[in-house]
């Protein structure tokens, strides 16, 4: 017999490894509205199957916990049972020999403490508190609740115009979203249970790129009501579009020379070409929206005048001012905020960074935009400095990858310490304090702390600060609009409490968010302003949705968009991502499982035809 041999996994283990991967995907694709107690029980059973059987708390304790939770679900328990679950889990957490046991118990503890009221509802009334409906995952996770299965089915049939019409029922920015939406709809796509999420965003782009000009729906008869919208960004224009379709006369006030807000002055052209943005804006304006650009509320026109002159006002000013680092040397020449930097590019003021060294501070999407833009302006070296790890960055993973691919350097675990200024008052270097990643904080993310390493000097000519945006709300406070932590206070209905006829929403209320959140807020505002004005107009779309294909397609890879070949990005602001080919779009759209038809969708909540 040989002393050692090479080990190879058996067939069963190989299959099981595959099943683990499937299960991981499946869990993350769980639809909203599941019973937390039931899920806890089944997680616990999985944990218990992992026990080695040596120590008592894990082998016996987890088994008894499962029995107790099952009793809760079977309405065969009392409130004392819930206490027993908690004390048993505590003992297992304290005394199991290894992580298999104590981590399982921790999960139970988190549940019994985090959703105890669900446990109690089961005990007392035999029911779940959680939502009883399980509608279509992509529709429910889209903040604007766009009819995703509907338009994907239309794309599959080659009906791109109808697809765009259907999207516009809930979102008047289909082109913009086809290019830059963060696509929360894909997060819990049920196709992940089969292979991977449908590339919904890529399909939308295919539709808008192939639809041509689509006429707007018919406008409702004139109501004689006047609505002012302050801010020509995605939120303001969304409200303007729907209010205009409802028959109200809408006037948009925009302080910049052009409409679009952050879409024009925040997102660089290589991600969202101006002509793509203009497609959506032209469509919105074609419904009869009036526009005044270059008007600043507070200086050119007071809020009182607007409030008096209109039946209703929607404040959607966004978050366009920058946040300060509060560091020594921050006032030096060549320290610029990312918002300001990107805005100047949007306004056509192209700076020249040729041969310069640039540091970008921050780990969000704006920082990635600033980083990649600086590269395109000719910078010799761009370093993105972030105080946590790369995996902790809030920017989309693909944005980070692309920035790195284009040649920027990401320097994680470096907390900005101060900015070194040269004799002429210009930036000379950024000093950082190296960090070590540490224990998890209350927000569930590991926290960095100062490492036992000396400060680090990054020589540079420019520092771009991308650590968040703030709101300039002062001109609105004169009429009684209040702010809290810099955000305008408004209800979930967008009504501003205590101020008659004024509504507010978008980044100005929620803090910096995404296009689709601004669109959703605009929709909410439009509906509630319409009601406030005494109407109940419905926005609908009469496009017939193609019937679902009988059975689903077998597992098939997801089509991802490719980047165009980029030798150098210097001076090149043209679009980076290439759209799908027809062949790809057809295959990708056929991957949709049509949750509007199969499963719960055909029973309830599968399709909202109007709002």
């Amino acid at each position, binding site marked *: 017999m040989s002393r050692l041999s090479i080990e190879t996994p058996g067939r069963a283990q190989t299959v099981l490894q595959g099943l683990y991967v499937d299960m991981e995907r499946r869990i993350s694709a769980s639809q909203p*509205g*599941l*019973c937390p107690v*039931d899920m806890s029980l*089944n997680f616990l059973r999985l944990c218990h199957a992992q026990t080695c059987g040596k120590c008592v708390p894990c082998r016996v304790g987890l088994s008894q916990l499962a029995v107790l939770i099952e009793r809760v*679900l*079977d*309405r*065969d328990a009392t409130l004392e049972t819930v206490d027993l679950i908690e004390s048993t889990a505590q003992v297992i957490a304290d005394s199991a020999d290894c992580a298999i046991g104590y981590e399982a118990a921790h999960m139970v503890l988190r549940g019994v403490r985090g959703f105890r009221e669900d446990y109690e*509802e089961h005990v007392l*009334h*035999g*029911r*779940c*508190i*959680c939502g*009883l409906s399980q509608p279509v995952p992509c529709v429910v996770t889209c903040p604007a609740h766009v009819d995703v299965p509907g338009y994907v089915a239309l794309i599959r049939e080659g009906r791109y115009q109808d697809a765009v019409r259907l999207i516009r029922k809930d979102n008047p920015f289909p082109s913009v979203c086809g290019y830059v939406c963060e696509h929360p709809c894909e997060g819990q796509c049920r196709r992940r249970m089969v292979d991977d999420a449908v590339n919904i965003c890529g399909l939308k782009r295919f539709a808008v790129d192939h639809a041509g000009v689509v006429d707007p729906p018919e406008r409702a008869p004139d109501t004689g009501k006047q609505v002012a919208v302050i801010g020509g960004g995605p939120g303001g224009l969304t409200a303007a579009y729907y209010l205009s379709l409802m028959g109200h006369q809408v006037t948009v006030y925009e302080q910049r020379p052009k409409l679009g807000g952050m879409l024009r002055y925040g997102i660089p052209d290589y991600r969202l070409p101006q002509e793509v943005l203009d497609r959506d804006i032209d469509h919105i304006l074609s419904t009869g929206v009036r526009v005044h650009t270059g008007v600043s509320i507070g200086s050119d026109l007071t809020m009182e005048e607007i409030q008096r002159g209109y039946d209703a006002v929607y404040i959607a000013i966004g978050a366009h001012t920058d946040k300060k680092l509060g560091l020594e040397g921050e006032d030096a020449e060549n320290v610029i905020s990312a918002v300001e930097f990107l805005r100047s590019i949007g306004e056509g003021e192209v700076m020249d960074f040729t041969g310069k060294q640039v540091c970008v501070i921050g780990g969000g999407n704006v920082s990635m935009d600033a980083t990649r833009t600086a590269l395109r302006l000719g910078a010799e070296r761009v370093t993105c400095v972030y105080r946590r790890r790369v995996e902790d960055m809030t920017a989309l993973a693909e944005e980070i990858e692309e920035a790195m691919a284009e040649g920027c350097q990401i320097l994680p675990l470096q907390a900005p310490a101060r900015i070194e200024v040269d004799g002429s008052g210009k930036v000379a270097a950024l000093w950082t304090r190296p960090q070590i990643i540490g224990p998890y904080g209350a927000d569930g993310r590991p926290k960095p702390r100062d490492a036992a390493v000396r400060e680090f000097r990054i020589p540079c000519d420019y520092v771009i600060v991308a650590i968040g945006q703030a709101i300039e709300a002062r001109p609105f406070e004169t009429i009684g609009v209040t702010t809290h932590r810099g955000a305008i206070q408004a209800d979930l209905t967008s009504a501003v409490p205590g101020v008659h006829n004024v509504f507010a929403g978008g980044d100005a209320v929620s803090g910096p968010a995404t296009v689709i959140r601004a669109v959703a807020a605009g929709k909410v505002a439009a509906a509630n302003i319409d009601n406030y004005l005494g109407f109940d107009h419905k926005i609908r779309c009469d496009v017939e949705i193609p*019937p679902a294909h*009988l*059975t*689903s397609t*077998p597992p098939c890879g997801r089509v991802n968009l490719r980047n165009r070949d980029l030798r150098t990005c210097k001076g090149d602001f043209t679009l980076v991502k290439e759209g799908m080919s027809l062949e790809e779009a057809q295959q990708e759209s056929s991957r949709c499982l049509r949750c509007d038809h199969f499963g719960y969708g*055909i*029973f309830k909540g599968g399709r909202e035809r109007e709002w």
Partner: protein
Amino acid sequence: MVTCSINGRSVCVPEGTTILEAARSADIQVPHLCYLKGLNEIAACRVCCVEVEGERAMVTACNTPVREGMVVHTNSPRARNTRRINVELILSQHDCKCATCVRSGNCRLQAVANDLGILELPYATQLPQGLRKAWTTTFPLYHDYSKCIKCMRCIQVCDKIQSLNIWDLAGTGGRTTIDVSGNRVIKDADCSLCGQCITHCPTGGLRERDDTQKAFRALSREDKITVVQVAPAVRTAWGEAFGLTREEATMERLAATLRRLGFRYVFDTNFAADLTIMEEGNEFLHRLKAGDLKQWPMFTSCCPGWVRFLKSQYPELTGQLSTAKSPQQMFGSVTKSWFAEKLGVEPERLYCVSVMPCVAKKAESELPTMATEHGPDVDLVLTTRELIRMIRADKLDPSRIPEEPLDDPMGVHTGAGVIFGATGGVMEAALRTAAYVLTGENPEPDAFRAVRTGPGLREATYEVAGIPVRCAVVSGLGNARKLIEQLKAGRAHYDFVEVMACPGGCVGGGGQPIPPEEEELYGVRGQRLYDLDRSSAMRFSHENPQVQVLYREYLGEPLGQRSEELLHTDHLAWEMPH
């Protein structure tokens, strides 16, 4: 048109036809359980799965339209196996004690399982235990969690037809069940008790509270004189269970059958319907002339499902209901006063039973406002189905029982009373008498027929003695809600509105026999009532000679003091959850 092949036969059907309907048109039956055409096409039970060539998985016949060239096999080995195992799975979570089930012999699941010849189950029985199967025994509507197969039909009927959303899925995962929506219990819910969920349930998952044993007990008591009234709609449907045609299943044959069950006096609710017209018709004229109906109409009050609906959904409009009691309750009132006096007995000695096509009538008879110091006016309400069960329990064969006349005095009725059982009937009967009261002459009996047939809402304006009367008739509570919303929005104005909770009126009531096939029978049953009206010698409520005697001997005049006392009610004197 689309041509496809089903089991090797070429079938040509209009585009959009489902596989199930296409097969049916070629006399090929595809077994199914949850499917209800137009209402529940959600493919939940998977019993209708068929094999379609070229498809990976089985396809549900109930909600898949046929396509040109589609090749379908409903009885391939794979289809047979799928169907059988899915039915076995349903049975494993169904209380299969058919011998003690109210739906035995008329159960879709039993029929499907029997047809498949399933003799034993390979799966463990999984039934809810303990409190998970608990349901109140006193409420007129009974839900049996162990027999429910979660087909969702009750949810759909209540949502889509009745707009009350009483039922919903509750729980998640394997414990998912049908329960009262919004985590409520049924007693606290705004259920109208229309019973449409019962008549659309494929199994014994839903039924009325069974009161047949109470009825038998009353019949066996020597100290009680039993009096039974039969609602108009019952005569259109009771014979369905005994293989009688509607023409054979006469009220007279039912009277003879009821006597064999032991009832002492057999009367007709139609008598009370005529009485209702006298009161409600006069009340309407009174309120119309008094200018009470400028903004809101007067609503009929004879349907307790509708009264419960209005009180829970639009409590602010309760005052617009006619104060007239329903015929059932007028009958009870008159029985325990006038009739007791006529017999010379204490009202307590009379035991008043009514046979109704309705579940809500059980709740109505138990209202605090429907009783006197002598006890409830109506002691017990049986649905048509319960009556059928009693007849079967005594092994009576109505087809061999000769007809017998009803008893006097409350067995006498007119055609106007008969049509109460169909949507539009109350309105039509009331207008006939209103016209007489205003002009002193009988109008043409069919003058008001325009409100009889048509879609959910019918409206007509009649000139009654020169006064235009704007009338609307609606059946089904979803339609009633639409009508009220129109009224509230100021888009419609009526003087008089008749509402029946069940589609088609009482003939389609929630207490009526459940057809073995999924079909709605209110059309043919309603037609039977109009036929009876047409062949009646008297067609005006005010011509009912015994009603005239009642007023002369006892009540005085319509809306008089005694009439108000006995025949009218205060709808605000009891609470409805809302």
